[in-house]
């Protein structure tokens, strides 16, 4: 370890900042929202919960009750911190985005029409009711229920001082639930990393200094250098301060954070969004539109899969278009990936040599899956300039063909990275259904909601100028509008690919595939700050 290496006190940082639990073997979750009615009782409730809170230390090494089976994390809205009695000077020192909350930022986020707050789940309808957020992630349904009931007992002890809010729309949409479920999707009896449009999700997540990840994990997930993107020299871990308050960030400053330092140090900000997915509209649009798209000789289904990949920047199986521009090579990637992971993790009869060989293939495929950029694709021939993953993580491509335009290729990107957390919710086995409850519980962790999450949402999802795409929106997540006659009016351009003989293809009349159904902005305190909030000893003077 060198003297300059970042060392974080992982025992002081809440675990959801470092771990995307879903990917770490905790595929079931419940999200709970509480209202604090009485300051003293509320503080006592928080104090009682602290022993359950999971930190960022390795999950099997934590003394907290059963972190190897179930995790628990807490966060607060601005109204919640006020109810818990934080001093005025501290309250005033929070950044404006957090103080306003998500609903009041709807114009920035593009939450209009069907996404507008009056269409959100009932729990979000009463302003300032949601005070505290709790996430429970578990290895099994049984572990999950056990922890949930443990929390309910502690809540009872708090009397009327704290209440668990109801008002999440449940699967049928008729009853309201006291928690929001989030579960990895099962397909053909197997757990998947898919979301409801059936893309493999959560592949790229930033890696930052002190996170405890090895160098190989930075490939494709850190910040780009001038070296080749499929090597470890091609990437560096991002500065900690982009994701955790009180640490140096990418501009060599400490992020804007509330006072006193003990309140903010090792904390972060979180965005919670319930995003409904119109599965029926999505499949219908793809089917209708892909008829006139794709390499000659592909079947209708294959053309549909090709257009679907062009929207996302990755094929359904996760293969990036930048490295796998054509259908056949992408499918081959998927087969090899399946074989290698099967041998490695699911085949009890595989020999040590077979496993060793599979591990090498797996590592190689993993590098190919993440270790790429768009340097040889500045016109979007392989991966369209407006594809979802290219927009949200441009990987240094904003220099376009002016190599060296910025000090580092990621200069315009490194301060816009976000940690993505969350899981899908609901069931979409009826692939023509729009109205049922199915979508993604989408959470973001970042040091500045405005500079990171809101920027990505406003400029990169709902606008296109940075990619030379004028006002074109992200095909998948954009808040596509209606035209003057009330018809869907979303548009996107799939750039031409001369090698594959594919001319530029225009998609139009695109409906809104994803709609917001609720959410808010939260502050995730460190374990230290959590204890101080519970004890009422935050002192900004």
């Amino acid at each position, binding site marked *: 370890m060198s003297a300059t290496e970042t060392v974080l006190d992982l025992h002081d940082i809440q675990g959801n900042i470092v771990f995307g639990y879903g990917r770490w073997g905790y595929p079931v979750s419940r999200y709970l929202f509480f209202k604090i009615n009485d300051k003293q009782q509320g503080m006592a409730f928080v104090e009682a919960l602290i022993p359950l809170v999971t930190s960022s230390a390795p999950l099997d090494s934590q003394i907290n009750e059963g972190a190897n089976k179930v995790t628990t994390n807490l966060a607060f809205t601005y109204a919640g911190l006020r109810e818990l009695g934080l001093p005025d000077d501290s309250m005033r020192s929070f950044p404006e985005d957090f103080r306003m909350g998500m609903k009041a930022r709807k114009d920035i986020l593009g939450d209009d029409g069907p996404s507008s707050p009056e269409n959100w789940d009932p729990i979000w309808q009463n302003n300032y009711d949601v005070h505290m957020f709790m996430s429970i992630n578990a290895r099994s349904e049984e572990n999950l229920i056990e922890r949930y009931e443990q929390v309910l007992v502690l809540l009872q002890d708090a009397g009327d001082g704290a209440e668990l809010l109801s008002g999440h729309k449940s699967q049928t949409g008729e009853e309201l639930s006291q928690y929001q479920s989030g579960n990895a999707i099962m397909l053909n009896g197997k757990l998947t990393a898919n979301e409801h449009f059936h893309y493999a999700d959560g592949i790229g997540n930033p890696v930052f200094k002190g996170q405890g990840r090895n160098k190989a994990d930075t490939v494709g997930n850190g910040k780009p250098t001038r070296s080749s993107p499929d090597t470890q020299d091609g990437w560096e871990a991002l500065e900690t301060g982009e994701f955790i308050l009180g640490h140096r960030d990418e501009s060599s400053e400490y992020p804007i954070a509330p006072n006193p330092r003990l309140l903010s140090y090792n904390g972060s900000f979180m965005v919670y969004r319930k995003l409904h997915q119109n599965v029926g509209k999505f499949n219908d649009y793809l089917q209708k539109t892909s008829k*006139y798209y794709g390499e000659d000789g592909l079947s209708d289904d294959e053309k549909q899969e090709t257009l679907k990949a062009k929207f996302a920047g990755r094929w359904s199986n996760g293969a990036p278009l930048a490295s796998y521009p054509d259908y056949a090579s992408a499918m081959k990637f998927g087969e090899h990936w399946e074989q290698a992971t099967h041998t490695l993790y699911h085949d009890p009869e595989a020999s040590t040599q077979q496993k060793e060989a599979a591990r090498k293939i797996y590592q190689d495929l993993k590098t190919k899956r993440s270790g790429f950029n768009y340097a040889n694709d500045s016109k979007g021939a392989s991966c369209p300039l407006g594809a979802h993953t290219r927009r949200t993580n441009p990987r240094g491509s904003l220099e376009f063909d002016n190599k060296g335009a910025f000090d580092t290729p990621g200069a315009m990107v490194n301060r816009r990275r976000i940690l993505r957390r969350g899981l899908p919710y609901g069931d979409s086995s009826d692939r023509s259904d729009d109205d049922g409850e199915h979508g993604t519980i989408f959470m973001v962790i970042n040091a500045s909601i405005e500079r990171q999450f809101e920027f990505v949402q406003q400029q990169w999802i709902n606008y296109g100028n940075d990619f030379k795409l004028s006002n074109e929106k992200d095909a998948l997540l954009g808040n596509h509008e209606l*035209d003057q006659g009330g018809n869907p009016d979303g548009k996107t351009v799939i750039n031409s690919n001369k090698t594959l003989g594919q001319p530029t*293809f*225009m998609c139009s009349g695109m409906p809104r595939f994803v709609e917001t159904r609720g959410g808010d902005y939260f502050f995730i305190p460190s374990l230290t700050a959590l204890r101080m909030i519970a004890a009422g000893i935050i002192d900004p003077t």
Partner: protein
Amino acid sequence: MGNRFGNAYGLTVLVPIKQGTANNRSFDKIIRDQLQRWPKHSGSPFALVPNTYLARAFLLQDVFYQGAPAVEEHLKNKYLVVTSNFFGDLDEYLHGMWEAISDALKTVLKHCYGFDQVVSAADFVLYIKKCKINNSLFFNGSNDRPLPEQLKALYVKQAFIHFAYLSQHFRYQGESGAINLQKSFKRFVALIDIHNLKGNSWPVAAVKVPTDIETTIKATIVTYQESIK
């Protein structure tokens, strides 16, 4: 000179407003009221002035602080500020403005100093030039061509996007697709009539894509029924 950038001119005018009142309202309040009632977009008087890229009018009541350390300062007068970026020569532009919207100008400018001397286009040009201030920096974001050419270009661009979108499927019709595409394109070229600036074009100051562009372009595309005749 900071007023010119290529063929574009950046005009900034500060017209001093009379002090005093009429019907218990000071003249600047009357002007503000009038400006706020001006129609917007294509209906705006400025939209009728030939070769205007972008124009705006606002009231400058006073300034309070300037520079650091802050020193309190006040203007001697209230001003009507008019700025315009336009194509071509200043005299010609102002003549065109007088010709197009002198009635609208008179109702506003009659509350300003010295305007009672203005009776002709030549007087107006002289009056505005007296009120003009020189820019120290002017950047023109437009493409340096006369307005009718720019509007035509916008129209052709929009029309062509519709054409390209509506003819994508010909690619899958083999040889007959190529014939149909060519046939459609000939009709398209005839419709847009590219050298005729007075013909089909983008409406001045339209902020929304005119829907009839798509409808007329659609009619140029060879339909399935037509192609199997």
